[in-house]
C-alpha cells in the first residue's frame, strides 16, 4: 500500500485570538469555572465552550484560543472571575500562528519531528501539549484522529512547514 503525498495537508488553521493565562493551579480552577469549562482544566487537554478553547499546557499555564467573534465576552468573563486574584494574562495573538495538519500521513510526518508518541492511543483526540519539533517548540493539539492543530511562534512556521513537508514526502516510502 503506497500512500501519496496528497494524504498530508498543511494549511493555516482557523483564525484565533490567543492569550497565555498563568496562575497558581487553584486560580486556574477559578478561571475554568469563570469560562464555563468545568471545575478545572485537565492537564495536557483541550477544553472548549462557546468561543473559548483552553489548552492546559502546564500546572500553571493555559493557552486560550478564542474565536474572534466571541472573544470579548469570554475575556470579560475571565477577567471578572479573576478580579483581585493573582494571575497573569498576556495576549499573544500575534506571537504564534496556527497550522492545520491533516491526512492519513499526519502521524508519520509528526513522528519525524517530535519524540513523543503521536499514535491515537497515546495522544488521543483532545490532548494538547507543548513539545520539541525538530529544533523548534510547538503546541500540538489533536482535534481529530487524523488532524492536529499546531501552534508555533511566528518565525518558526516556515521551518516547521518545511520540515513537515519533507517528512510527509519521506513517509510515503
Amino acid at each position, binding site marked *: 500500500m503506497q500512500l501519496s503525498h496528497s494524504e498530508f495537508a498543511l494549511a493555516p488553521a482557523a483564525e484565533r485570538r490567543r492569550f497565555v493565562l498563568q496562575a497558581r493551579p487553584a486560580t486556574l480552577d477559578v478561571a475554568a469555572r469563570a469560562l464555563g469549562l468545568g471545575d478545572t482544566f485537565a*492537564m*495536557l487537554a483541550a477544553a472548549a465552550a462557546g468561543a473559548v478553547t483552553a489548552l492546559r*499546557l*502546564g*500546572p*500553571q*499555564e493555559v493557552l486560550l484560543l478564542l474565536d474572534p467573534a466571541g472573544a470579548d465576552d469570554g475575556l470579560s468573563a475571565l477577567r471578572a472571575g479573576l478580579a483581585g486574584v493573582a494571575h497573569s494574562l498576556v495576549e499573544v495573538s500575534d506571537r504564534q500562528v496556527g497550522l492545520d495538519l491533516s491526512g492519513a500521513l499526519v502521524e508519520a510526518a509528526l513522528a519525524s519531528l517530535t*519524540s*513523543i508518541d503521536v499514535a491515537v492511543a497515546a495522544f488521543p483526540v483532545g490532548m494538547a*501539549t*507543548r*513539545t*520539541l519539533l525538530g529544533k523548534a*517548540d510547538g503546541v500540538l493539539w489533536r482535534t481529530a484522529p487524523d488532524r492536529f492543530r499546531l501552534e508555533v511562534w511566528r518565525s518558526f512556521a516556515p521551518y516547521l512547514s518545511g520540515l513537515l513537508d519533507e517528512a510527509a514526502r519521506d513517509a510515503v516510502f
Partner: protein
Amino acid sequence: MLLIRCPYCGERSEIEFANGGEAHIARPADPMSRTDEEWAQYLYMRDNPKGLIAERWRHAHGCNRFFNALRDTRTDRFVMTYEMGRPRPEIDAATAAEAAR
C-alpha cells in the same frame, strides 16, 4: 536519550528537558552575610556524586516547570522525580541497589 518522567506531563524524552544541575542547593537567604568561602561553596562547589544524585530538570519544551530527580550517575537510571520544594526523599537500600544495577 534518557526517558524522564515529568511530574506534570509524564514520560518524555530527554531532548524536551534542560538539566539544571544539582538540586537542593538553596540560595542563601542573606547572601551579603555569607563569607567568601561560604559563597563559593554555594555558587561553585558541587558533590558531583558517582552514585545517587538529586538534580534539577526543567521541562523546557513542555510544561516549563522545574522539578527534581533522583538518578544514579553510574547507570543513569532514575529512581524518581518529584516536585520542586519537596525535600530530598529518603530511599531504601533495595531501591538504591536497583538504581545502581
